[in-house]
């Protein structure tokens, strides 16, 4: 992928983080705490491998959470790539770093997507 396409994706996902992040903040701080059970149901993370705010058990909000996950993953992995590129500079080392970051990004996406899907299946 050309550098300009990577950076365009970086800017687009940055904007995506702003939009989906705003939805997330709105959902967490302006809607759910009013019901008073947020801590008990989700944020304790006690032996819950797929802890997620129950309010996201809604297709549209779940999609926005997945959008936030996607944008954050791409943006952060590319941010790390740039940091490593400037620290290492060597093309051979960068090929390894890029592959590792692709792998880490894929793991985050798979686990995050699974969590959102599983949480949505709970009734």
């Amino acid at each position, binding site marked *: 992928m050309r*550098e*300009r396409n990577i950076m365009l994706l970086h800017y687009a996902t940055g904007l995506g983080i702003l939009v989906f992040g705003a939805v997330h903040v709105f959902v967490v701080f302006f809607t759910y705490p009013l019901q008073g059970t947020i801590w008990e149901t989700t944020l304790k993370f006690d032996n819950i491998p797929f802890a997620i705010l129950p309010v996201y058990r809604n297709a549209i909000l779940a999609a926005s959470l997945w959008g936030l996950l996607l944008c954050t993953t791409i943006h952060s992995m590319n941010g790390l790539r740039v940091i490593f*590129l*400037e*620290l290492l*500079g060597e093309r051979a080392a*960068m090929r390894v770093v890029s592959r590792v970051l692709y792998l880490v990004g894929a793991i985050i996406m798979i686990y995050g997507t699974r969590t959102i899907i599983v949480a949505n299946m709970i009734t």
Partner: protein
Amino acid sequence: MQKVVFRVKRYIPERGPKSYYEEFEVPFRRGMTVLDGLIYIKENLENTLSIRYSCRMAICGSCGMRINGIEMLACNTQVAELGVPIITVEPMRNFPLLKDLVVNMDEMFIKQRRLKTWLVRRDTEEQDNPTSQYLQSDEELVRYLQFSYCIQCGLCYSACPVVATFPKFYGPQPLMKSYRYIADSRDEGGRERLGLVDTSEGVWRCHFAGSCSKVCPKGVDPALAIQLLRRRVLTS
């Protein structure tokens, strides 16, 4: 102020790999520049001091150095305007040091050449033997005019924090120069140049610290050129 102290960073490769500071007392006179002080030191106090200078009027760009920690031209900086009794003079950063205040600027010029910073025409034969002038309107001239004021002194390159951490980065001066020709209506090598700057060492590595534009003695804004270059890369 009767006298001013010049604290000069010295590096003499024959005496070992370490740099050290040496202080010289120089008589102050009104209108005296830092370069005048350094020439006084070389002529009267320490003739082994190495400095590079030529025009003494901020045109040639030879006497770039760090004066009290900031990149400046020594000929363009008056001692009085600094307003301190001790002036610390150091060589530019991001360049290999040759001796005292003299650095090797080859790397910057090699990067410039790599980006084809000259007027490129498809018909090279006609360019070598032009039959008429390449006319340009005022509007077309304004698009690149400020960037053509660059005197290649290397101060922006020295001040760039990205070049300091990532030496493969082209740096502000070569990228600005590249934009200067891309924005020139007479040039026909823009597409090729955009391909050259759209790399991991190119235009995207600028973090927009802005120090290049701050230190330019000719008022050129390389940070702006890099942003304009990015726009060109994205829209090309």
